[in-house]
């Protein structure tokens, strides 16, 4: 499908907001959103058009969630339990410095990560992905409860607008697409832990901006790393 017609883009943004796209179209659209800021704005505009305040007489459900929801949020983000407030680890420069160091240490075979940031529940390293010179560039971090894995760069990774980084899980030589990665640290790709094979490899290939059109890597593998034993 071509995504350059303004009407089609508007239509897709609207249907994405509404949630009625078939699941595969939705996935593909989400991959496109990662690299297309204008399309993200079109979706935001649709979200704003459906201002729920306008539907207040229908949005009447309110119900306190169980306490474990907030506890998990706190643990996943390693937020401090008590004031004074500190920035969360994902946005903190100290964390990224620490993570880069930990990645280098891990690459050298030294498991040091947990010592870098002894926050309530340190995220566990699932894999370190390095370039062909062996320099670590991406880190895959598991969350405390094993539900999800976040993948984000730990240093600047240059890419032009015509291309995207796509993450693959490789098991027994077969690649399985996991999604497109944003090249900045603040927006990790979250995947379910179950799709990361325990004795497999995570790899990142260079693909056209909407992701591989075939479901298999079409560009060169730029980064890869073995999934570490858990």
């Amino acid at each position, binding site marked *: 499908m071509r995504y350059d017609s303004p009407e089609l883009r*508007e*239509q897709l943004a*609207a*249907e994405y*907001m*509404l*949630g*009625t796209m*078939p*699941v595969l179209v*939705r996935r593909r659209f989400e991959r496109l959103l990662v690299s297309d800021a204008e399309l993200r*704005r079109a979706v*935001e*505009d649709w*979200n*704003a*058009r*459906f*201002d*729920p*305040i*306008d*539907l207040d*007489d*229908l*949005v009447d*459900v*309110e*119900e*306190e*969630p*169980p306490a*474990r*929801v*907030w506890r*998990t*949020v706190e643990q*996943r*983000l390693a*937020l*401090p339990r008590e*004031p004074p*407030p*500190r*920035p*969360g680890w*994902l*946005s*903190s420069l100290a964390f990224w410095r620490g993570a880069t160091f930990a990645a280098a240490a891990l690459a050298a075979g030294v498991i040091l990560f947990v010592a870098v940031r002894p926050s309530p529940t340190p995220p566990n390293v699932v894999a370190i992905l390095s370039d062909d010179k062996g320099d670590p560039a991406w880190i895959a971090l598991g969350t405390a409860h094993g*539900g*999800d894995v976040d993948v984000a760069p730990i240093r600047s990774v240059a890419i032009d607008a015509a291309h995207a980084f796509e993450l693959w899980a490789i098991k027994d030589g077969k690649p399985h697409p996991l999604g497109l990665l944003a090249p900045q640290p*603040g*927006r*990790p790709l*979250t995947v379910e832990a179950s799709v990361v094979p325990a004795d497999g490899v995570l790899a990142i290939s260079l693909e056209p901006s909407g992701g591989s059109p075939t479901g298999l890597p079409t560009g060169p593998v730029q980064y890869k790393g073995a999934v570490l034993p858990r």
Partner: protein
Amino acid sequence: MNQSPLVLQELLRKTAAGDSAAFSLLYKQTAGKLFGVAVRIAGRGEVAEDALQESFVLVWRRAAEYDPMRGGAMSWLIAIVRNCTIDRLRRRGTRPEGHAVPEEALARLAAPESASVGAEMRALRRCLDELEEQPRRAVVLAYMYGLTREELASQLAVPVGTVKSWIRRSLDRLRRCLDQ
């Protein structure tokens, strides 16, 4: 709970700056309503809880992307929760057992103009009322309950292709009406 939009906006701004106390307060102020949004789509249980949890992780990471010029803080938050809930539901492939659209909601949707009494009719409400009854139901059911095209087709007893074109045309008409 009636949250002041400006308070939420300020809490989001502080959250974007890494203020975890503001983030915690934002959760306390909005979790009830947002959980309600997730529960309405996915029913009570794991999917709704996981979606709410995932949503707040995203709120922490993406708070800086919230732009007050482009819409209210609550609609930004609700959009994240709807997305996470619909994603999790679609990934499962099935709706939780026993979770259906309540009959009384369907009845209300059939006669929306009765719900919007008073001179001050909101924009979306007014534009929805300009749609024909069945297409309007399809759009509102999808928005409120996260129904798929197939679920809408069976709920409204029409072919999937009809639902598809209703939705497409209705969204287009809504956009023209709302952007006037």
